[in-house]
């Protein structure tokens, strides 16, 4: 790393950590219903929303009702978006006259945005109208994020409350998360992004002349618009000349910011955050990484405040930082070394395939680990073109279950499930009844934690296996050999863990990935979410056990290291064989 890269990387973490406490404190106040500086403006709005939708904000819910409200809300969100995508051609704000989505693609896209995955089997600039992007997709970016945050708040209440069944009110938590946290931060972030050159308009796409016209081979189409093939099966092409190009426009900044802040990741354009209109300068780049990590990081502090000991939050944040920095260091090392096969041709420098010039290599790599450690899935570089070990870093972060900062809310609740398991295992080793945050960990908590952690892994391994014997699934691979396996593994891991990034060479818009992928996203999102709420309900009903001499302190460094080890062992036991066949084999082939 150059001196400049060291400076920008260190400064980035300083800024991030400096924001954890103020934002974490603010969020704790919001969820506990205390007054904040935004209250004078938003309390009347909030009350109006409750009145119209018939919510009694003082009414508490038990875990079953909380879960039911969450699932029902998500069902309604899904249905609305599905219908909107199927009717895109009939709706307004569609200056490019894009047609409706097919049902398979609409299903996949609607599930993808409702589950906070934002896997995109379509290409934004050539398939989605402004109405779809703004009214359909952007709304889901907000409420799917607020849903994740509400669930983790309910879990924290489970730890805090004693001998009760009530966990709060889903509608209130969801509304407050959106109004007080996501909207104000988005507004500030969007204006900052526009100042850097991210576009924000409703203009029709613009046509400009090319300085030097471009001649290219265009695939010849038959009368029905299908590509023609010659006798050998190769596509028939004809020579064409482009004298002008069409530059897409749109309300990008407003969607860009919530895409990162809500760890959604669905890009306005196909190239996502590598597109110059989504991410034009180094400053916008670091701002976007900050937006990705901001809420998941600050939530650890919110957790600390709510459980009455902020060191509990710092311990979890420490584990997250350790894993993030370790994977960043590996990625930076292998990418800076470049591709040995290209070095033989006289090409000098880092692996620049699929990377932009304007961000430094360290900045690019930091974005990649941030987007996959969280459930964001926006990309500022093409992960498919990373070196084999480099590509294994984002893949591994996804497979660990997105706990390295993690998705907004979902990252922290999965991390808390890991903490419960770590406490339990250490309890067995020292022969004491395991306790965490003053609550006894018993059979029900263990079951729910295991379900939370292993659901995505089981889905990934089974579906990847199915994909390997499905000809449609394997025909979608863009690269031969071990790399093709990595592409499929990455795609399914990304969907099951609600990440949404891709080894994008894989042609994902086929029935196999659209339909099975939707299933993976649904299972990967709702099974853990409901299990977490069930655990919250069980914990809330327990009495408080004051810490004694035999209690394992969970706010100290040894526990943080132990927790890290437990995470790595579970991850390695589950996925090492699959990784060995994909990225590791490819690495050995490359250095031969």
């Amino acid at each position, binding site marked *: 790393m150059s001196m*400049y890269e060291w400076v*920008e990387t260190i400064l980035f973490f300083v800024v991030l950590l400096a924001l954890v406490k103020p934002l974490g404190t603010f969020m704790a106040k919001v969820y506990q219903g205390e007054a904040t500086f935004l209250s004078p403006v938003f309390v009347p709005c909030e009350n109006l*929303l409750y009145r*119209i*939708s*018939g919510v009694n904000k003082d009414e508490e819910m038990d875990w079953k009702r909380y879960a039911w*409200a969450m699932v*029902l*809300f998500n*069902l*309604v969100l899904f249905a*609305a978006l599905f219908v909107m995508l199927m009717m895109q051609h009939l709706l307004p704000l569609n200056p490019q006259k894009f047609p409706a989505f097919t049902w398979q693609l609409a299903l996949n896209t609607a599930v993808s945005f409702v589950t906070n995955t934002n896997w995109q089997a379509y290409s934004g600039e050539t398939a989605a109208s402004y109405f779809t992007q*703004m*009214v*359909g997709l952007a*709304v889901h970016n907000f*409420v799917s994020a607020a849903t994740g945050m509400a669930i983790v708040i309910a879990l924290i209440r489970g730890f805090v409350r004693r001998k009760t069944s009530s966990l709060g009110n889903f509608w209130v938590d*969801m509304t407050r998360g959106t109004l007080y946290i996501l*909207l104000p931060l988005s*507004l500030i972030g*969007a204006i900052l992004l*526009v100042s*850097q050159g*991210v576009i*924000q*308009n409703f203009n029709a796409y613009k046509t*400009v002349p090319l*300085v*030097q016209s*471009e001649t290219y081979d265009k695939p010849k189409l038959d009368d029905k618009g299908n590509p023609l093939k010659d006798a050998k099966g190769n596509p028939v092409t004809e020579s064409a000349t*482009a004298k002008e190009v*069409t*530059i897409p426009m749109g*309300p990008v900044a407003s*969607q860009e910011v919530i895409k990162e802040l809500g760890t959604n990741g669905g890009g306005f354009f*196909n*190239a996502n955050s590598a*597109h*110059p209109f989504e991410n034009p300068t*180094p*400053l916008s*780049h670091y701002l976007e990484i900050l937006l990705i990590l901001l809420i998941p990081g600050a939530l650890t502090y919110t957790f600390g405040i709510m459980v009455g000991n902020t060191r509990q939050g710092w311990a979890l944040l420490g584990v997250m930082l350790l894993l993030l920095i370790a994977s960043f260091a590996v990625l930076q090392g292998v990418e800076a070394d470049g*591709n040995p*096969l290209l070095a033989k041709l006289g*090409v*000098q420098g880092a692996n620049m*395939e699929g990377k*932009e*010039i304007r961000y430094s290599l360290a*900045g690019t790599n930091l974005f990649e680990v941030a987007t996959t450690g969280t459930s964001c899935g926006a990309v500022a570089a*093409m992960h*498919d*073109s*990373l070196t*084999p070990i480099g590509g294994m870093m984002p893949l591994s972060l996804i497979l660990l279950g997105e706990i390295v900062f993690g998705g907004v809310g979902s990252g922290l609740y999965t991390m808390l499930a890991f903490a419960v398991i770590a406490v339990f295992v250490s309890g067995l080793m020292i022969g004491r009844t395991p306790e965490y945050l003053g609550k006894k960990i018993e059979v029900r908590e263990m079951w729910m934690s295991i379900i939370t952690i292993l659901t995505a892994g089981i889905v990934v391994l089974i579906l990847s296996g199915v994909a390997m014997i499905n000809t449609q699934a394997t025909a979608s691979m*863009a*690269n031969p050999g071990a*790399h093709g396996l990595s592409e499929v593994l990455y795609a399914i891991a990304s969907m099951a863990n609600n990440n949404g990034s891709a080894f*994008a*060479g894989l042609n994902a818009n086929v029935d196999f990935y659209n339909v099975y992928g939707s299933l993976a996203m649904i299972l990967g999102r709702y099974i853990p979410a409901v299990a977490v709420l069930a655990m919250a309900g069980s914990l809330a009903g327990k009495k408080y056990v004051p810490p004694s001499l035999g209690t394992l302190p969970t706010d100290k460094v040894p526990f943080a290291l132990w927790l890290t080890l437990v995470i790595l062992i579970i991850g390695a036991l589950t996925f090492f064989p699959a990784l060995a066949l994909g990225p590791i084999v490819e690495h050995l082939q490359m250095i031969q």
Partner: protein
Amino acid sequence: MKEIRPAILMLILFTVICGGIYPAVVTGIAQAVFPKQANGSFITGKSGKELGSTLIGQPFSDPKYFWPRPSAATDFGYNPMGSGGSNSGPTNPDFIKTVKDRVKTLRDTGVTGAIPADLVLASASGLDPQISPESAMLQVARVAKARGVSEDMLVKAVAQATEGRQIGFLGEPRVNVLSLNLSLDGLK
């Protein structure tokens, strides 16, 4: 079923707030405060016509122009309607051959020594407007010969089109290829 009413009404209300009011407010502020950026950072030529966006690269292959990075955009290089990378894996034989061909094209113009990676490897967006200063300097001799101008003059033009690190330390120095070529043609 008590939750069905809030589920439907919350969806409608948040659609109005997050999908209507919020983007409208952002657009209003953006258009008032940063109109140039919000509309795509377009370059207006001497004739008053828009010549392209500083943020969106254009394809160049004529020896008299500085060449941008290879582009893997769909249909043709630097097609703004087909943003994206090659997604080639690092060991893909087709990819290695493509890079070999690109290296040969550069060698044929008289380039010797090591070649900066950015000049022969495709960007992520397929629209990357910039190249590294090293990649620009590598092309000075070719462009000078094709245009019949002095290399000194081109070195100055490259320096003028080079953007430094933002706020002194963020990102990498870079040369905007479209701006550079437009200034060589005297259009800007």
